[in-house]
């Protein structure tokens, strides 16, 4: 049974959803440390270069493809060239795989939101997180049973994701983002204002922005900047093409891509000020240097920050609730986009109703993610996240830019977006898609492989890396090829006649 394609209720709704998808945990816990450790203010040079030469051009490409071919990622690519369908399934499947572990971190954040009320983590936040809370086992092959508080958070989050996507694009996803995104920005502004005015905050902010020009000459810093922009904007994950396919015929594409990119990067810049203001306060209150307290990722959110909140006393309870609330809100708007990217592709392929597909996808996702709610969950998460991002997502971005740049012709996408946008983009965009983006992503991929050969990731055993790391990449590829060989429920969807109608 063919289904009518959903549409956004307004362009604002689309932009908020796209920004909501891009703004995630990485903006809050990865970018601040990256800015600090990769040259401070000097890092802004490679960062802006990455934004204007790869981030925004790829965003226009994904928005343009999704809008032109009015389909989820596999359908859009199949309509462009029937042989490229698998390239659309790979990001959709990867998105689903990422979702199964990303949601675990949100479950931790939901638990910590609750812990913030009593500051249940006590004085040894490191031991609390790893031993008492997630009950980390000694190896990826020792599951150590299910961690029930994580499991309960997981169930609630899957239920919420299911409900939002079940309600549809305008009544579910758009409405959620219209509430959560302004709330998230509001909370972050409160954190930044208070964080930057804490005693000692200036120490953190000086360390964050003082330029170290020697770092700008380092190729690794440039790769880190391109990596941050690429991953942070939810590119090559199937989300942006899917979201733009729900736009009406006459809509602005070019400016929407700029808004999404600026909003995402503006948010992480804001988050960096808040995070380093608070870290400056912590360093001053403990009489240590910023380098002793500055950290990122799980260590920042679940170990360092809870410690700061304890030091703050009653104010720390409020800060804890605001901070973990931020993580949860930023995460939910991203998880919903991943559910949608995967479900939309399956809806297009099978013709089954949204309600059936979303229910199947969320039930399956929930069952898989239980694996991450065990004592070995952090190991699985760490390995799979590294491999999917370093090899899967980078390769997909590279393929996207390569086939569009060299086979399809970027000019066709540019002409399409220029026809409906307020301001046209010039031929510079073709150059970025054809040369700059593929070269940078290829370099990044080669570097990742060389690093992996020299030193296997994270000190894990070869078996663990083969099974969970390379296994997840191979699984994604096999599933993509397998699904792409299955027929569409309506063959005319990708037939040349239908393609001309949609082009």
């Amino acid at each position, binding site marked *: 049974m063919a289904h009518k394609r959903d549409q956004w209720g307004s*362009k604002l709704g689309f*932009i908020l959803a796209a920004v909501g998808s891009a703004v995630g945990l990485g903006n809050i816990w990865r970018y601040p440390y990256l800015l600090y450790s990769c040259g*401070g*203010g*000097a890092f*802004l040079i490679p960062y*802006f270069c990455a934004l204007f030469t790869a981030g925004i051009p790829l965003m226009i490409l994904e928005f343009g493809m999704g809008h032109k071919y009015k389909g989820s990622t596999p359908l859009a690519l199949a309509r462009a060239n029937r042989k490229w369908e698998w390239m659309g399934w790979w990001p959709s499947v990867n998105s689903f795989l990422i979702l199964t572990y990303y949601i675990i971190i949100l479950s931790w954040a939901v638990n910590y939101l609750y812990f913030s009320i009593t500051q249940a983590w006590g004085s040894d936040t490191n031991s609390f997180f790893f031993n008492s809370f997630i009950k980390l086992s000694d190896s990826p092959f020792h599951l150590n049973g299910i961690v029930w508080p994580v499991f309960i958070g997981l169930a609630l989050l899957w239920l919420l994701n299911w409900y939002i996507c079940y309600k549809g694009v305008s009544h579910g996803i758009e409405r959620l983002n219209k509430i959560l995104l302004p709330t998230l920005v509001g909370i972050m502004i409160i954190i930044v204002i208070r964080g930057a005015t804490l005693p000692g905050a*200036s120490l953190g*902010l*000086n360390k*964050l*922005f*003082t*330029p170290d020009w020697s770092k700008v000459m380092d190729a690794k810093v440039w790769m880190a900047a391109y990596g941050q922009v690429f991953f942070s904007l939810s590119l090559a994950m199937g989300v942006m093409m899917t979201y733009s396919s729900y736009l*009406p015929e*006459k*809509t*602005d594409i070019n*400016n*929407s891509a*700029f*808004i999404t990119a*600026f*909003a995402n*990067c*503006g948010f992480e*810049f804001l988050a960096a*000020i808040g995070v380093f203001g608070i870290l400056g306060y912590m360093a001053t209150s403990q009489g240590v240097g910023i380098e002793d307290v500055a950290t990122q990722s799980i260590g920042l959110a679940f170990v360092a920050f809870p410690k700061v909140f304890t030091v703050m006393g009653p104010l720390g309870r409020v800060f804890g609730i605001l901070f973990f609330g931020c993580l949860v809100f930023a995460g939910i708007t991203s998880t919903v986009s991943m559910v949608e990217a995967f479900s939309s592709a399956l809806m297009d392929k099978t013709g089954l109703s949204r309600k059936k597909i979303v229910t199947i996808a969320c039930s399956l996702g929930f069952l898989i993610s239980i694996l991450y709610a065990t004592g070995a969950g952090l190991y699985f998460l760490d390995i799979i996240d590294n491999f999917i991002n370093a090899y899967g997502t980078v390769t997909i971005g590279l393929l996207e830019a390569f086939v569009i740049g060299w086979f399809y012709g970027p000019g066709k996408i540019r002409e399409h977006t220029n026809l409906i946008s*307020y*301001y046209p983009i010039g031929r510079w965009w073709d150059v970025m898609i054809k040369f700059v983006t593929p070269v940078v992503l290829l370099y990044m991929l080669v570097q990742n492989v060389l690093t992996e050969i020299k030193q296997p990731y994270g000190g894990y055993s070869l078996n663990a890396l083969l099974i969970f790391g390379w296994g997840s990449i191979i699984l994604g590829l096999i599933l993509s090829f397998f699904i792409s060989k299955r027929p569409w429920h309506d063959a005319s969807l990708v037939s040349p006649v239908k393609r001309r109608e949609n082009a």
Partner: protein
Amino acid sequence: MTTQSLVFFIIGGLVLWGGLAVTLIIAYKNRNND
């Protein structure tokens, strides 16, 4: 904050938040064309 770090904070803020403001104004002015 030192003057040097303040300068880079302003540059970052101008490009990112300024860029966002300009693009939002463009979208608002053309809202009836969509």
